[in-house]
C-alpha cells in the first residue's frame, strides 16, 4: 500500500499547490515534496533485502478475467531494482524545489504543481508491475516536463521542446506496439490475457519475434536516455529548459530509460539481447566517447554538463548490456549517483548564471576568491562526477566498467575513456570558471547562503555517503539483481 501512497501523495500535493496562492505555492510544494521524502524514507529503511516485491498494491483495471484476475492491472510494488530510482526521485525533487527558493517564476502555482505531477508519474514508472501501467506513467511523465520546459524555457523553447516531445513519443509508441504484442501473446487465464511484466518474462517467443520486440523497446529507451544516435533532442532541450526542468530531465527522467533496459528488455527478450546486445553496446560506447569529446569543446556550462550526462548514461547502458551482476549493480547505483551529481552541477551552473548573467566559460573566472562555500561544494560534486575514489561516482563507474570489461576487453577499454575525458572536461570547466583572474562579471560574486547552500550540502552528504559506504545501497539491490540474472541466462 505504501507504494500507492508514493504515487498518490504527490498528486494530492500538486492539486493543493495548483489551487493555492502565488505567495505560498513554493512553500506548499516544498512541504509536499518533503512529505513524499518521508514516505520514501520509510520505504528505504523498512525495505527487507530480499528478492521479493514489497509494499505492493494490485487492482483490476481493464480487461480482467471473470474472476477478477489478470488483464491490465493497476499494480505496483518495490523490489531491489525499483528501490534506488524511487529513492532518487524522492530525494531529488525536494532539492529541486528548494533550489528555486531564491528565484521567482511566473505563475508559480502551475510551475510547482507540474513538478509534483512529474514526481508522481516518475514514481509510477519505477514501481509499476504491469506493462501498460509502466507505459502509462512513462508517457504521463512527458506531459508535465513538456509544459515546464515550453512555458518557462529560454528563447527558442517552442521549437526545441516540440522536437523533444515528438522524438520521445515516437519512441514510446513503438514500445506500445511491443507491449500490445506481448500482451496478446500471454496465455489466456479464465478468458483474459495478462499484462503483468512478470508474465512477459515467462513468454517463450521465437528469436525473430524477440529481435523486433528488442528494437521496439530499445528505441523507446534509447531516445529517453538518450543513446547515440537518438540523442539530438537532448543538448538543446537541456539548455533551453528552465533549470529545475533540466534537473528533472537529467537527474531523474533519463533513468527511466536505464530502468526500462533492466526491467523490461533484459528479462523479456534475452534471446533478442543475445543477438542485438552487442550492437546496442557499441552504440552506447560510441555515445560515451562522442559525448565526452563534444563536452571538452563546449563553452556554455549547461551545454557541457548536458553532453557529460549523455556520455555518462552511455556507460550505464553499456553496463546493463554486459548482462553481468557487476554491470547491473553498477547501473543501479550509478543511476542514483549520477542523479545526485548532475542535479548539483546544473544547480551550480544556474547559480553562476544568476550571479553573473552568463554561463560562458570564457567570460567567467576567479570566482573562488570570495566564495569558499561554492568552491568546496562545487569541487566535491565535480569529483563525484569524475569518479574519484571515495565519491559516489567511483563506485558506480568502477562496477560498470568491470562489467563491460568482463564482456569484452576492447569495449571495456573504449568505455574506460569516459573517466579520462570526464576528468578533462570537468576540470577544465572548474578551472575556467573558478580559478584565474576575476572577470568583470565575477568580481562581485557573492557566496552562497541559506537555501542554496543547504541544497548543495545535502547533495555533498550523498556524494560521500555513497562513496564511503556503498554497501548500504548495494546490499539492498543485490538479491533482486541476482534474481533477474536467472532470466537473462
Amino acid at each position: 500500500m505504501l507504494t500507492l501512497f508514493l504515487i498518490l501523495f504527490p498528486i494530492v500535493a500538486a492539486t493543493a499547490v495548483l489551487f493555492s496562492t502565488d505567495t505560498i505555492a513554493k512553500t506548499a510544494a516544498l512541504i509536499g515534496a518533503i512529505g513524499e521524502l518521508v514516505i520514501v524514507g520509510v520505504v528505504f529503511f523498512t525495505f527487507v533485502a530480499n528478492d521479493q516485491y514489497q509494499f505492493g498494491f494490485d487492482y483490476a483495471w481493464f480487461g480482467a478475467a471473470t474472476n477478477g484476475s489478470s488483464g491490465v492491472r493497476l499494480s505496483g510494488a518495490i523490489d531491489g531494482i525499483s528501490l534506488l530510482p524511487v529513492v532518487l526521485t524522492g530525494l531529488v525533487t525536494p532539492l529541486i524545489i528548494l533550489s528555486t527558493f531564491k528565484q521567482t517564476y511566473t505563475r508559480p502555482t502551475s510551475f510547482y504543481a507540474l513538478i509534483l505531477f512529474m514526481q508522481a508519474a516518475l514514481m509510477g514508472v519505477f514501481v509499476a508491475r504491469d506493462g501498460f501501467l509502466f507505459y502509462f506513467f512513462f508517457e504521463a511523465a512527458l506531459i508535465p516536463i513538456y509544459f515546464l520546459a515550453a512555458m518557462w524555457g529560454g528563447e527558442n523553447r517552442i521549437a526545441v521542446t516540440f522536437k523533444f516531445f515528438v522524438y520521445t513519443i515516437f519512441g514510446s509508441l513503438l514500445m506500445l506496439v511491443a507491449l500490445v504484442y506481448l500482451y496478446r501473446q500471454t496465455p489466456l487465464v479464465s478468458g483474459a490475457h495478462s499484462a503483468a511484466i512478470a508474465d512477459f518474462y515467462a513468454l517463450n517467443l521465437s528469436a525473430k519475434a524477440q529481435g523486433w520486440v528488442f528494437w521496439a523497446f530499445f528505441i523507446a529507451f534509447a531516445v529517453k536516455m538518450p543513446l547515440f544516435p537518438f540523442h539530438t533532442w537532448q543538448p538543446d532541450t537541456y539548455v533551453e529548459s528552465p533549470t529545475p526542468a533540466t534537473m528533472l530531465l537529467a537527474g531523474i527522467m533519463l533513468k527511466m530509460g536505464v530502468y526500462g533496459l533492466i526491467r523490461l528488455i533484459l528479462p523479456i527478450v534475452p534471446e533478442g539481447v543475445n543477438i542485438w546486445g552487442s550492437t546496442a553496446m557499441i552504440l552506447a560506447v560510441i555515445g560515451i566517447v562522442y559525448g565526452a569529446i563534444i563536452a571538452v569543446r563546449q563553452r556554455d556550462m549547461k551545454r557541457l554538463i548536458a553532453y557529460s550526462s549523455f556520455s555518462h548514461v552511455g556507460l550505464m547502458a553499456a553496463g546493463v548490456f554486459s548482462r553481468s551482476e557487476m554491470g547491473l549493480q553498477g547501473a543501479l547505483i550509478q543511476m542514483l549517483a549520477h542523479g545526485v551529481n548532475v542535479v548539483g552541477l546544473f544547480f551550480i551552473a544556474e547559480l553562476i548564471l544568476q550571479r553573473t548573467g552568463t554561463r560562458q566559460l570564457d567570460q567567467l573566472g576567479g570566482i573562488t576568491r570570495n566564495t569558499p562555500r561554492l568552491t568546496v561544494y562545487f569541487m566535491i560534486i565535480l569529483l563525484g562526477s569524475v569518479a574519484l575514489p571515495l565519491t559516489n561516482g567511483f563506485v558506480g563507474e568502477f562496477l560498470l566498467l568491470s562489467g563491460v570489461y568482463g564482456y569484452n576487453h576492447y569495449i571495456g577499454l573504449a568505455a574506460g575513456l569516459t573517466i579520462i575525458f570526464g576528468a578533462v572536461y570537468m576540470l577544465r570547466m572548474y578551472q575556467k570558471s573558478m580559478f584565474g583572474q576575476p572577470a568583470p562579471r565575477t568580481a562581485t560574486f557573492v557566496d552562497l547562503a541559506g537555501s542554496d547552500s543547504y541544497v548543495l550540502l545535502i547533495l555533498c552528504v550523498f556524494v560521500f555517503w555513497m562513496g564511503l559506504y556503498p554497501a548500504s545501497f548495494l546490499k539492498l539491490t543485490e538479491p533482486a539483481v541476482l534474481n533477474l540474472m536467472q532470466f537473462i541466462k
Partner: protein
Amino acid sequence: MTFQTYDCLQMLPIILLSLSGIALLFLGFQKSRALLLPATLLFLVIAFVANFLDWGKTYMYFRDMLLVNNLAMIFTGVVLLSTFMVVSLSGSLADDEDAQPAEYYAILLFSLVGAIMMIGFENLIMLFVGVEILSVAMYILTGSDKRNLRSNEAALKYFLMGAFATGILLFGIALLYGATGSFVLSGIGNYAHSATNAGGSMLLFYVGMFMLLIGMLFKVSAAPFHFWTPDVYDGAPSLFTAYMSTVVKTAGFAALLRILSVSFSGVYDFWWVAMAVVTVLTLLIGNITAVYQASFKRMMAYSSISHAGYLLIGLVGLSQASKPAIAFYSLAYSLSTIAAFGVLMLVARNRPLNAAVFGDQTTLARTDEHYDAFNGLARKNPLLGFVMAVSMLSLAGIPLTAGFWGKFMVFSAAADRGAVWLLVVAVLMSAVGIYYYFRVVIAMYFREGQTDTIRVAPFYRIVLIAATVLTLALGLLPNLFQGLI
C-alpha cells in the same frame, strides 16, 4: 440465441425521434426560439433513456428488419450522446437571423433515425434507407450557412459525390441479392460460408460485396474515397461539421462492423487484404495531409480521415474484441471532437475575417479558423485551453485520456490477427498526429496573442467540462465503459 419477435411499437428511439422531430417543426411556427433548444434536448434525453430500456435483451423488430442488442444500444447511446452535446453547443443559432433552428433541430433528429437504422439493420434495405436518411439530412445541414459560398459549394459537392456513392452502394446490394437471393444479413452470411466450402464461382457475390463496402467506406471518409471530406467539413458550419464527423462516422462504422462480422466473416481471407490497403492509405493520407493545413478546421477534417483509419484497424482485425473496441473508440473520438469544435466555435465567433481582404460579400460570414486564432488562448481562458488541450491529447492517443484506450483496443484486435505490420504503420502515423494536434496546444499555451476573455454561456460551459471529465475518466478507468459491453 433466441430472438423474440415483436411487431408492435417497441422500437422506441426511432419512433420517439421521428415524432419529436415533427413536434419541433410545429414548435418552429411559434417563433419562440428560446423553447426550441430545451425541447430538443429533452427529446434527446427521453430517447436516450428509452434506448436503454431493453438493456440485456436481444430483440428483432419489424419482421427481422432491425436487431436491437447491447452493442446496438451502446452505439445508439453514443450517437444520442454526441447529438445531445452538439445541440447543447448550438445556443448561438438563436441569435442568428439567417438561421432556422427549428428546421435544423428537426433535421438532426430525423437524421438520427437514419443513424439508428444503420446501427441495427438486419436487412440491407434498412441499411440503404438509413444511409439515405442520414445523408440527405447532412446535405441540407452542410449548406445551411446559405450566404456563405463555401457552405453552398460544400453542400453541392457532398450531394453529388454522396449520391454517386449511394448509387454504388445500391448496386452492390442488388448484386448481393442476385448472388445470394437474400437481403437479410444472416442469410448472406450463410451463403458466404456454404458457397466458399462448395467451391463454385462467387464472382457476383464478391463484386457486390466490394461495391457495398466502397459505398460505406465513402460515407466514413476512408481513403481513397475521402476527397469530398476536407471541403465539406471545412465549408459546413462548425456545429454541423462536429455532428458529421462524429455521428455519421459512428453510425457508418457500426454498419460496417455489423455487415463484416455477420455477412462477410466467412470470406475474411478474401477482403482483409483490400481493407488493410484502404486502412494504410487512410492513415497515411489523413495524417500526412493534416500536417500541412494552416486552418484548424481543415486539420480536423483530415484528422477525422485519420481516425477512420484507426477504426478500420479494428475492422481489419475482425474478432469478438473488435466490437467493444470500435464502440469505445467512437465514444472517445466523439467526445474529443465535439469538445474541440465547441472551443473552435467560441474562438472563431469573436474573430470574423476581414471582408476587405477578400472583397466580396460571400466571405463576410467567414470566421478565422486558423491555428493563429488560438494564440495565447489559455492565458485568458484557462478553462477553454484545458478543454481543448485534453481533447487534442485524447485525439493524439496520449495516456490519461480515453483516446489512448481506444487506440489500445483497436490495436489489440489487430494484434490478435497477427497484423503487426499494420500496427507499426498506425503507430508511426500516431507520431505524425502528435505534430498537428500539438500545434494547437502550443498556440494556446506558449504563444502570445491578443485574445480577450471569452464569455461562455453556463450550459455551454457545463457541456465542455462534462466532455473533458468524461474523457479523463475513461482514460483513468476504462472499465467504466467496458463493464457495459
